[in-house]
């Protein structure tokens, strides 16, 4: 790693306030019963205890994002013709995400592979990514629902972060992970902490070692793929799902979107909004045909995407980062760990016994 700086815990808010003068700072803040990444307000503080209810993905893929703006005009031609002016709305807001967790940052790497794929660059995502510093706070107390270590991550991992922040007693140690993070860190008036880097690493390793080892889910792609036509399996795991979409909205890697136009009086914007693949309407076609008409088919796609299709396209990387938000906040206690574990050990019913 590159530069290391440190900051006293009681000086954090002052520092974030200072940073906030030149860039938007998004940090977790308690709001009612939940914690969300909100624009930093020194008067309201930040909440770094545990995992925020929602993920910071909105920093790179906002819930509602205007892509283009358009305006119809009348031209002078005879007979009157309608002119149309369309303008791109490329984001240009320097941002610091402070207090992401390693699972959240890993989620950004999942998004990077999709939105910044070589020749096919999503200019909106890339503009945000380029102007955003992700400062990730290494976890000290993984929750019961955490399973980052079963999907390739860890409570102190730096993947996807620009800066990794480690708690050491009364200090936060900030270590640059990327050049972007390095450049940002060097601009800050913070004391050097190079000699604390080893200690910080040891602290992260201790948390990792204390985290219960569950069975790895990295072998899921083949098995989940092989179960595609095994509808009894999907019927079983999807039975209690309400298709409410809480899991998709809270997930740091769910990136499917809708594009719609919002207009009034001959002008408006084309917007991109988060969408939810568990919704019936998601794939409903104009003809009335729906390739994923049943909840079981939609659950198969949701689990399949994270544990089979995405890994197939991206060298085996799962698009689940093990944050456990979908488990902690599901109104009917769905548990994706259990679904994938079940898939890994599922024995197809012998053909002669099944009701084909």
């Amino acid at each position: 790693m590159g530069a290391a700086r440190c900051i006293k815990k009681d000086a954090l808010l002052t520092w974030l306030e200072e940073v906030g003068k030149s860039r938007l700072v998004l940090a977790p803040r308690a709001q009612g019963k939940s914690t969300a990444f909100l624009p930093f307000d020194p008067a309201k503080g930040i909440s770094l205890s545990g995992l925020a209810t929602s993920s910071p993905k909105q920093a790179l893929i906002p819930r509602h994002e205007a892509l283009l703006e358009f305006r119809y005009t009348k031209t002078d031609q005879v007979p009157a013709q309608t002119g149309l002016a369309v303008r791109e709305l490329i984001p240009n807001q320097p941002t610091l995400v402070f207090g992401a967790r390693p699972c959240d940052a890993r989620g950004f790497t999942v998004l990077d592979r999709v939105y910044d794929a070589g020749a096919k660059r999503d200019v909106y995502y890339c503009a945000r990514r380029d102007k955003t510093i992700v400062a990730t706070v290494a976890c000290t107390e993984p929750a019961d629902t955490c399973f980052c270590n079963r999907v390739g991550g860890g409570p102190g991992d730096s993947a996807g972060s620009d800066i990794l922040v480690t708690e050491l007693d009364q200090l936060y140690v900030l270590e640059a992970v990327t050049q972007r993070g390095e450049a940002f860190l060097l601009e800050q008036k913070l004391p050097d902490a190079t000699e604390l880097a080893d200690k910080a690493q040891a602290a992260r390793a201790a948390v990792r070692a204390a985290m219960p080892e569950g069975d790895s889910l990295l072998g899921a792609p083949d098995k989940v793929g092989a179960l595609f036509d095994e509808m009894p399996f999907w019927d079983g795991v999807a039975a209690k799902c309400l298709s409410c979409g809480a899991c998709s909205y809270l997930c740091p890697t769910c990136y499917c979107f809708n594009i719609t136009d919002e207009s009034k009086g001959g002008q408006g914007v084309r917007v991109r909004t988060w969408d939810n693949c568990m919704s019936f309407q998601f794939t409903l076609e104009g003809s009335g045909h729906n390739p994923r008409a049943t909840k079981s088919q939609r659950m198969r796609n949701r689990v399949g995407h994270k544990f089979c299709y995405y890994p197939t396209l991206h060298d085996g990387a799962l698009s689940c980062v093990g944050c456990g938000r979908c488990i902690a906040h599901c109104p009917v206690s769905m548990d994706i760990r259990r679904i994938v574990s079940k898939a890994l050990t599922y024995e197809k019913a012998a053909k002669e016994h099944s009701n084909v």
Partner: protein
Amino acid sequence: MSENPGTNLYLPFMATIQEVVRETQNIKTFRVTLNDPEQMRNFRFAPGQVGQLSVFGVGESTFVINSPPTRMEYLQFSVMRVGELTTRLHKLRKGDQIGVRAPLGNSFPFEDMKGKNVVFVGGGIGMAPLRTLLLYMLDNRTDYGDITLLYGARSPSDMAFSYELPDWLARKDMSTVLTVDNGTPDWAHKVGLIPNVLKEMNPSPENSVAVTCGPPIMIKFTIQALHALGFQDEQIITTLEKRMKCGVGICGRCNIGSKYVCQDGPVFTYAQLRELPNEL
């Protein structure tokens, strides 16, 4: 991707409707040109590729470019009125402004098909993607073997491209058969379901490729008929349709397993389709 302005995947070319042709009671054809002459001049695509048409204020939908790349006076899209966007499109007239994001997706393997006999089997609006390839082949006639077209619709008044049919029927360098499910007294062609008429026609699979598009049920039985005639899975090509938003493999709607119809398709051989999960 194309030479979209500023390499923004979501920014359409601005285009003008030059002509609207009423094909049937629910299908209209739009002939459009890109407003920037240089963009129009530089526009390249291959038969089978699709585009997203924008009506700003309503949204976007995917349609195949059904004019061939050998005839670039305009880009042609034929649109069946089904939902919100298509209903609005049908209200547009000559001179109206739309957006075009194209070309998207893959194309028919028209290079690999050189030297082969080609059997087109189109049903209803499914004739549109076939038209692109058919006209491309007619414009490069010596590159291909025998060309056979079977085109069917529910009734004579449901046949799109009716103004072209006399020419296709008269041409000596292709053989054309028309059929309808329900005939009328003045209908001079076949009456019968496409797969049945196809079996009657009995095209040889020898050195041939069949290209089919139409309603799912028609495709299903057409493929069965082709199998019965001895066509192998690799010799059968079709093109799929799915609900799409981004058109560039991101938004998550048109996937079949790990394949995205918008970029890995819409054209697939039946051999490829059989390898895909069954989620059409």
